[in-house]
């Protein structure tokens, strides 16, 4: 392949004020992190609640959580995003619809849609992991807690969840990384996150290879760092004699 690599392109002016192309990537990374982190908070909270509900001894509550999981995990993420961004606002009461479509900065409305979408989508997956974490515990753990006089909410908060979360840190880490990678769908509704900025740089400069190489390096480094962070968390909360850490 005959291609003239030009890594200096990132330091060239974009022609807009003092901006260089690298600034676009920094801004894009900022949006990617903002989308993924807030989406993750929603996913972790809602997913944990749903995961608990799937295991409680109440058919209605567990049925509700199951229905949620099946709905959100069997529809493609991109379809869900388009629904949240293009369809849901039309179904809202008119003042809210107008606020969303006209008053809000377009970046903000895209941001809200994608955060809600990713949060709710990932919650279904977190839910399943929390559920399996709880179900992986010996039945006797809940029985012992009942026998000591604990009430159900205490059994979850004191006995089951602290153990379940320790067990599911590795799959939960994958989900945490997934939400960062999935955040790239936001580029399809015009949010200028990392992928959108990459595409824009490629179009403006015609340095397609450099732009996508840099994006790849940024995504990779970001996710590697997050994985190492989670590995550290796993070690930090490890209990002697309970579960081995990181395959050791």
């Amino acid at each position: 392949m005959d291609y003239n690599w030009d890594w200096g392109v990132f330091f060239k002016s974009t022609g807009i004020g003092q901006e260089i192309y690298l600034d676009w990537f920094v801004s894009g990374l900022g949006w990617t992190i903002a989308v993924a982190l807030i989406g993750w908070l929603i996913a972790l909270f809602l997913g944990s609640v749903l995961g608990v509900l799937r295991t409680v001894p109440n058919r209605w509550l567990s049925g509700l959580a199951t229905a949620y999981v099946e709905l959100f995990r069997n529809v493609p993420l991109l379809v869900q995003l388009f629904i949240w961004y293009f369809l849901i606002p039309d179904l809202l009461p008119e003042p809210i619809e107008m606020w969303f479509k006209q008053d809000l900065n377009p970046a903000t409305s895209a941001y809200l849609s994608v955060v809600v979408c990713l949060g709710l989508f990932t919650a279904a997956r977190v839910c399943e992991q929390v559920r399996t974490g709880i179900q992986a515990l010996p039945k006797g753990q809940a029985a012992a807690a009942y026998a000591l006089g604990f009430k159900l909410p205490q059994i979850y908060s004191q006995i089951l969840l602290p153990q379940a979360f320790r067990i599911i840190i590795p799959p939960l880490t994958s989900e945490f990384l997934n939400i960062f990678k999935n955040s790239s769908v936001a580029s399809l509704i015009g949010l200028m996150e990392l992928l959108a900025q990459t595409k824009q740089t490629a179009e403006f400069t015609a340095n397609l290879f450099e732009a996508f190489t840099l994006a790849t390096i940024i995504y990779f480094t970001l996710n590697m760092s997050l994985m190492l962070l989670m590995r550290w968390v796993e070690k930090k909360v490890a209990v002697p004699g309970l579960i081995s850490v990181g395959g050791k």
Partner: protein
Amino acid sequence: MISIKNVSKWYGEFQVLTDCTTEVTKGEVVVVCGPSGSGKSTLIKCVNALEPFQKGDIVVDGTSIADPKTDLPKLRSRVGMVFQHFELFPHLSITENLTIAQMKVLGRSKEEATDKGLKLLDRVGLKAHAHKYPGQLSGGQQQRVAIARALAMDPIVMLFDEPTSALDPEMVNEVLDVMVQLAQEGMTMMCVTHEMGFARKVANRVIFMDRGQIVEDCHKEEFFGNVDARSDRAKQFLAKILQH
């Protein structure tokens, strides 16, 4: 103290308990034995409502288990239970295992709970292990901690569900010693166990169950001393487990 009245229980079509009736009076030690699948563990779990039953009633210290108005968590906090697989909480240290229910259920202060927990830990001979985690102890040690954990709640009665069945043979005695001591101090105890040596030593009464029914319910001397008067099923069982 415990009055079991005509208790029957089904898992779907399958009847696991059939019209079980017996009493455990204050200070009494009752051993429940029988072949596996005979319903003895299920029966003992009905006593603190860990297992629901469909017919009959169990009254513990004047409180009816079948009464829907009964505050079950409160009742359970007064009934100590020891499990076959110990069921210490593996994410908590030994001290925390001994104190968590005292604080969260009984509302005791941390100091009071720790003081009580450590005293009981000392009593089961494990004071040096207070800072460790369950995974770092042997089975016998874990079971002794589990007994101490139950005792920390000041129970009015202790239920033991095959407390030595999951232990290596050499660890059985350290657990039985603690149980014998408890019995001799006058604790009311209902023990599902195959340890006939324990039954001979401290039990007042022996209940023999088969296929969900209480087949024998008599004094220890009668049960072991007058084998000829026992039912055929109990004779077979005794012949097998007393052989060695």
